[in-house]
């Protein structure tokens, strides 16, 4: 395939708006190619979109679907062409997730959190999402074995468990959610801060985070630890954020990437002592990022309207349900986690929601380096991913932000600095935040760029970046990004003008990390005991078999790779 004459933005390779041809051969970008030609003259050509943090599969999605028959009524699309029927807005059915991402030009999406014991279900749902390449991040933050290893200060054994857990769940990376809090929630409480010991385990969140980061680098995993902070969603929590980031300054990344990725930073950049004096501390967080290079983040932008929050942060969801008087699903996940699901609505008239809206944008606009900030809504916690184009328009246009601010409470100007920010992101910066940076953050070398050898994932938008001024015409930008002219996945056109024309089965990335045999043997002794005494299932039934991944891609890592 040859994509002719498009205006290409490929920031990972230093291509910034050059008119050039892209050739795809055998599913990857090549020097030359034959076959069909796509005329992309006057159009924006980008690498396929990469979303590094989105809740798209697993039991919590189903809990959301079951709790929200009202959500299922929105976004129904009948059986048409290649597409199966679709339902849902914040919690769509699995095929709809694939079609909707593909229509926007996204080709790779990573599920943000799966407990090991529930990973089989997660993979079954990932398999039901067509088109996209996928992966899942595995939860380790409140896991008994992890906390035991941390308590024993046994890094080799902890590394062995992480490697084993990734294999057991066919997971891609280490996700940590409110470390220790999931276990404390089993006793009806939470960990209050970084140095508040977890009940019965005598380890602190700080120790869990730090040791998991060390294990992550010892194993040379493609992705860094992927961290959801303690105290998330609470006023005044920005101090926890900065304290946690400081804690990780001594971690030396084993690969060319960050030492820690902080997810949905918006929910952790809160000032104030309560909801009444709630304010944005995004400038402080952005300032920290401007002065330090060991961390990346994603926005977690909120979208006004309906959302379904779902997280392994069980106590947070209890607080949400109480505060908002909403439906609540609560779940205890054996020796591994807790979790919760709460639907909610972000309202323009609410001062708190308005400040949250401002914080997400401030983080992206005040952090100078776009490689440090990924564009996400923490789908569907901040709002559904189909609203990304609206977020892009807000980031690219000061005018659009002012129009939106006019609809929000006046106090916003006192509680945030959004009104004073003139910065408008350019095409290259958006290409970084939605393509190049997520791929680099995840450690996916063949994604997020269009160099020779990269995956043949390309999105083509019907907008000429040489002619359109996004600052004054945000509506054109939003429209173009909402519906790609062409989305190409591994050299095959999958979406054209919003119509799905190809439904290839995507691949699933997982990390196959090796550890020394003696470490694994020591781990097995204590694991066997746990399965005999505490788990509801046998170890032999616990592992996700290879058969659950129809197109697995095992990324090699491990202690040997590190050496």
């Amino acid at each position: 395939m040859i994509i002719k004459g498009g205006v290409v933005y490929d920031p990972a390779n230093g291509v910034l708006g050059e008119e050039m041809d892209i050739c795809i051969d055998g599913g990857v970008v090549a020097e030359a190619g034959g076959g069909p030609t796509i005329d992309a003259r006057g159009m924006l050509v980008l690498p396929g979109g990469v979303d590094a943090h989105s809740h798209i599969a697993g039991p919590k999605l189903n809990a959301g679907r079951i709790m929200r028959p009202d959500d299922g009524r929105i976004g129904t699309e009948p059986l048409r062409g290649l597409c199966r029927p679709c339902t849902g807005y914040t919690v769509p059915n699995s095929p709809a997730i694939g079609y909707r991402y593909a229509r926007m030009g996204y080709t790779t999406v990573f599920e943000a959190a799966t407990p090991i014991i529930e990973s089989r279900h997660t993979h079954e749902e990932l398999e039901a999402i067509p088109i996209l390449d996928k992966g899942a991040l595995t939860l380790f933050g409140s896991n008994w074995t992890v906390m035991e290893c941390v308590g024993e200060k046994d890094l080799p054994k902890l590394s062995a468990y992480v490697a084993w857990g990734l294999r057991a769940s066919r997971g891609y990376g280490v996700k940590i959610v409110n470390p220790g809090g999931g276990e404390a929630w089993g006793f009806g409480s939470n960990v209050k801060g970084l140095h508040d010991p977890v009940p019965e385990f005598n380890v602190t969140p700080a120790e869990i985070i730090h040791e998991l980061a060390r294990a992550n680098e010892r194993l040379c995993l493609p992705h860094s630890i992927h961290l959801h902070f303690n105290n998330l969603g609470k006023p005044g929590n920005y101090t926890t954020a900065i304290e946690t980031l400081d804690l990780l300054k001594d971690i030396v990344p084993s690969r060319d990437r960050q030492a820690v990725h902080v997810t949905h930073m918006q929910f952790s950049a809160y000032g104030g002592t309560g909801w009444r004096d709630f304010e944005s501390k995004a400038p402080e967080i952005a300032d920290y990022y401007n002065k330090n290079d060991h961390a990346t983040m994603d926005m977690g932008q909120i979208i006004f309207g309906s959302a379904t929050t779902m997280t392994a942060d069980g106590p947070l969801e209890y607080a949400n349900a109480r505060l908002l008087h909403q439906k609540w699903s609560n779940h205890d996940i054996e020796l591994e986690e807790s979790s919760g699901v709460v639907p909610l609505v972000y309202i323009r008239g609410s001062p708190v929601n308005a400040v949250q809206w401002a914080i997400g944008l401030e983080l992206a606009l005040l952090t100078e380096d776009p490689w440090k900030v990924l564009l996400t809504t923490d789908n569907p916690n901040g709002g559904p991913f189909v609203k990304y184009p609206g977020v892009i328009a807000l980031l690219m246009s000061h005018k659009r932000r002012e129009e939106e601010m006019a609809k929000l409470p006046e106090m916003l100007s006192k509680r945030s600095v959004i009104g004073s920010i003139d910065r408008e992101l350019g095409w290259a910066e958006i290409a970084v935040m939605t393509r190049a940076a997520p791929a680099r953050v995840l450690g996916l070398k063949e994604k997020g760029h269009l160099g020779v050898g990269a995956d043949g994932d390309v999105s083509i938008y019907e907008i000429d970046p040489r002619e359109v001024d996004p600052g004054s015409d945000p509506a054109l930008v939003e429209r173009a990004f909402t519906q790609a002219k062409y989305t190409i996945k591994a050299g095959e056109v999958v979406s054209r003008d919003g119509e799905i024309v190809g439904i290839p089965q995507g691949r699933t990335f997982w990390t196959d990390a090796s550890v020394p045999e003696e470490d694994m043997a020591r781990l097995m002794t204590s694991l066997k005991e746990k399965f005999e005494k505490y788990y509801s299932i046998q170890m032999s039934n616990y592992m996700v078999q290879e058969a659950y991944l129809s197109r697995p891609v095992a990324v090699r890592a491990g202690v040997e790779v590190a050496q």
Partner: protein
Amino acid sequence: MRTITLRPLASHLVPIEAEALTADGLAKLSVEEMETLDLWLGNRRTKLCDLFAIETDGGPAPIEETTIILDGDFSRVKRIGERMSAGEIHALGDLGMHAGAGMSGGNILVKGSASDWLGREMRGGSIEVKGDAGNYVGSGYRGERCGMRGGSILVRGSAGVFLGEHMCGGSIHVLGNAGDYPGAANGGGTISIGGDTHLPGAEMTKGSISVGGRTTVLPGFQFQDEVEVEGLTYRRYVGDLVENGKGELLLALAQQSA
């Protein structure tokens, strides 16, 4: 004025989905255009003329001046008058489920009885049923937190369970009895029940429910005082305190029993 009369050509066991049957949908169409409108018979797409005979006086007219007369048994026909904004629907017999769902204006008059979900999530207009109505009259649909928001429903017979569940506005009058849990999670509407009912106002936070016949008061309601409304004395309760509610429950004194 334009009158459009529809008569079923046959009776069906499989339900018909007919959201096209509103004054909004038909007023501006010629008979030929109406005949080709899509309806669903079960999971089969079909045309209006395959199921109903159409008779009309005159050509296209404004929506407000259009009356649709449903002559025959429409008890298996769902979603009649869904989202209508004006005009009239007169059903000479029974109506199927979801009649007048989400309507914002106009009138529906049912000479027979209506089925479940009558006027669910309606926002305006009025519905009158001479016979009985089914369950979930004027309620929210599954999972929704706000049902009927405006307009009025009058049921001269009796209504089923969960009358006005999750309603946020508007009024419902039932002259006969109502089933269990009328006004459950009521967030602002007015419900009056002439006859008996059971456990009214569970989880209500706002709005008002009055019961003329016998009923059982939930323990989440607190007695306030006796009030007189239109010549009748009522015992007034506030609740549901389980939800810290400020709803009002009025029980007619004469007929009340525990």
